[in-house]
């Protein structure tokens, strides 16, 4: 077994990271964590996580940006909010997972073939195009982009859905697509403006 040095140096931390989390919506209470672990105990997925939610909170608070953003934990969160309602310090853990996911996508540090960030992205694309999401098309698209091998395993389910009339191959769409796009583009413009201001 190869020996690995476990010590962490302060230079490895990003002191701005915790500040950033605290400044985002939902991150406000990050620093109040007492590390009781009830979030991990309540989490139905913590048994698959590389870091339990409690550890993610502590790593984020101490500025271990790389460890946090490249963890599987944030992608395993199914947004069931079990941790959020249990947390004795009212830390919005689910929202923190969301904002960590966004940051990971922004920094491009998520695992490439990992289907969850891809799903998130495709979902967004479909909404921008049609305003609504067709589950069949979304799932098909997802498997073709990540792991088409798994798609074969899903054929049985697909046939079952066809049999019960729960599948549709036509994209559903809203009437005023322009209206929705205007809303989304206005936010893009706002963000650009903000970034420009931040630079100057």
């Amino acid at each position, binding site marked *: 077994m190869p020996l690995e040095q476990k010590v962490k140096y302060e230079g490895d931390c990003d002191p701005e990271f915790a500040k950033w989390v605290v400044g985002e919506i939902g991150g406000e209470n990050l620093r109040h964590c007492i590390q009781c*672990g*009830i979030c*991990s*105990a*309540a989490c139905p997925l*913590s*048994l698959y996580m590389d870091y*339990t939610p409690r550890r993610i909170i502590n790593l984020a608070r101490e500025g271990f940006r790389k460890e946090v953003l490249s963890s599987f934990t944030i992608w395993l969160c199914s947004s069931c909010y079990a941790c959020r309602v249990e947390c*004795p*310090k009212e830390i919005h853990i689910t929202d923190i997972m969301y904002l960590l996911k966004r940051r990971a996508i922004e920094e491009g540090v998520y695992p490439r073939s990992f289907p969850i960030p891809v799903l998130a992205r495709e979902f967004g694309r479909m909404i921008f195009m049609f305003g609504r999401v067709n589950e069949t098309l979304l799932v098909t698209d997802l498997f073709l982009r990540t792991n088409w091998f798994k798609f074969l395993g899903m054929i049985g389910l697909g046939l079952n859905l066809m049999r019960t009339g729960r599948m549709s191959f036509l994209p559903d769409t809203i009437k005023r697509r322009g209206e929705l796009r205007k809303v989304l583009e206005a936010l893009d413009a706002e963000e650009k403006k903000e970034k420009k201001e931040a630079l100057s």
Partner: protein
Amino acid sequence: MSENKPKQENLPRIGFYVCHCGSNISSMVDVAAVQKYAAGLPGVVVSRDYKYMCSDPGQEMIAKDIKEHKLERLVVSACSPNLHEETFRKAAARGGLNPFYFQMVNIREHVAWVHTDKKAATEKAMQLVSAAIARVAFHQALDKKRVPVDPNVMVVGGGIAGIHAALTLANAGKKVTLVEREATIGGHMALFDKTFPTLDCAACILTPKMSAVKAHPNITLWTYSEVEKVEGYVGNYKVTVKRKPRYVKEDLCVGCMECIDACVFKEAKFADKFNQGLGKRKPVYIDFPQATPKVVLIDKDTCLHFKTGKCKQSCATACDRKAFDFNQKEETKELQVGAIVLATGFKAFDPARSPQYGYGRYPGVYTALEIERLVNASGPTSGEITLRDGKHPKAVGIIHCVGSRDAKTNKWCSRVCCMYSLKLAHLIKEHSGAEVYNFYIDMRAPGKAYEEFYDKLLGEGVHFIRGRVDEVTDWAMTPDEEGKLVLRVEDTLAGFVRRIPVDMVVLSTGLEPQADAQEVRRRFNIGCGTEGFFQERHPKLAPVNTFTDGIYIAGACQAPRDIPDTVAQAGAAAAEALALIDAGFVELEPNTSHVIEDECCGCKSCVPLCPYSAITFDEVKKKAVINEVLCKGCGVCAAACPSGSIVQNLFDDDEIFSEIRGILK
């Protein structure tokens, strides 16, 4: 409004002092600038700043200046008047100045500590200083009024705090009335088996004190009684107490308990409140063998006589002292006391508010108080640890912080749970040999010999898992878990989630204010903190005093605390009451109101406003008259007087108007 401003040349000679308070004030307020600013204000002849005005040299400086510079008024700009007003009044008196020629400016609590911009904070400090200097010119020389103090004391609550306070006062020769709501004194401590960290038996140390209360010639013990009304003021309280009927004459009953044997109910079949519902009792009962007073009582809700009117009253027949009186009525008593000690204790957190732990849903889940009764040799199982189905648990999980350190229930640490959980872990292991798991967030053992007790438990092989349990369920994932209660928790030190099957779960419930704490504090005219415990006058320097003079607090009614701290506090409260009584008199703040007879137009507007009936109307002179002994100095009448003829000392119209002008200059 009167415009009789003192003329520039007639202004009194004012001395002004501004305090740095180390760096507490000077780090946010430019003290030198304030000093300079004040020096330029009309009437100010001396203006100084100093590191610590409240220190001896600071006070000396004031006294010296008064003499040397013939100062006629004094303004000190420092901390809250609630803290040091008295200090500087005394300093003024030492310099030969009437202490009420003084005004204090609060630039610490109200400025330096709450603002972040030094320039703005300094400006605000200057406004407040200008207001005080403007107002002090109007101050009058006043004298404090002396009122005699009634030497009797009432103690409310007969737990260990009330017992200790009552005994201390009685031993000092004071007459004490101890009022307790339940049928016996003893409080929560009477429920415990052993006490941490020494593991000495609670009954062995408590019951002698209970007997001492009963036997003490200076103590009148009123159990099954509640305070209904409190009137008066420091040194002179009038208290109304309601005494509930026991249907047994207290002076006749000797506690032989023949009546209980004789009751028409052959079997005890009603939930026994004292044993947390784990045992049964009859309608005629006594809480426990050492109950004090050792007098039985009848529970009206279950007694056949009261329910149907058809009972042969075999209990009364069995009593050879003829103590039974089914016609007993509630009594109302009045008391005159000089001081009151409130020791009304706490309420244990109701675990139904944390449904995830399954209390009430799974019979294997218990509260810590229930376990106290189970491990107690005189409890319902005589100290045997048995589950509700009669089986013996092989594994027991103790969950800490139930109803503590949790924004959804109570935010505070209940302070005693870590230690009592350790005690229960030890007792359960000793009595049953079960595997015991403690689930804690942080182990808090900060008392004398507490850490050593924790160390002892570690050595006994009790499991300590650092993590807050999420849930107690009967959901089995493995064959081992079938038929068990499963606790899901992150072992935060190991870094993963564990599922631990047990037979018995103990919820270490936290301490809360009594359910009626708000009503009680209104009755006694004291305050509660946001969490609902009684508010002490100062968290460090006046921990047993309240904002109402003559009313003291002790024990867990003020905050969660353990027995040693409770007893210490009860002693402190008794000492404070003694200090008040033995002085023989109190000095009252002279902020009372009086009527300027010539200006009173006799409209009677003020008469009905006074909550203390201190204002009467002189029908001959057709003028209002204020009785300054009854006046408590709220100033409501002064604000209402349409002719401006009522003056409130220290808060006169001229003083307040000049303060407004000073701020807005």
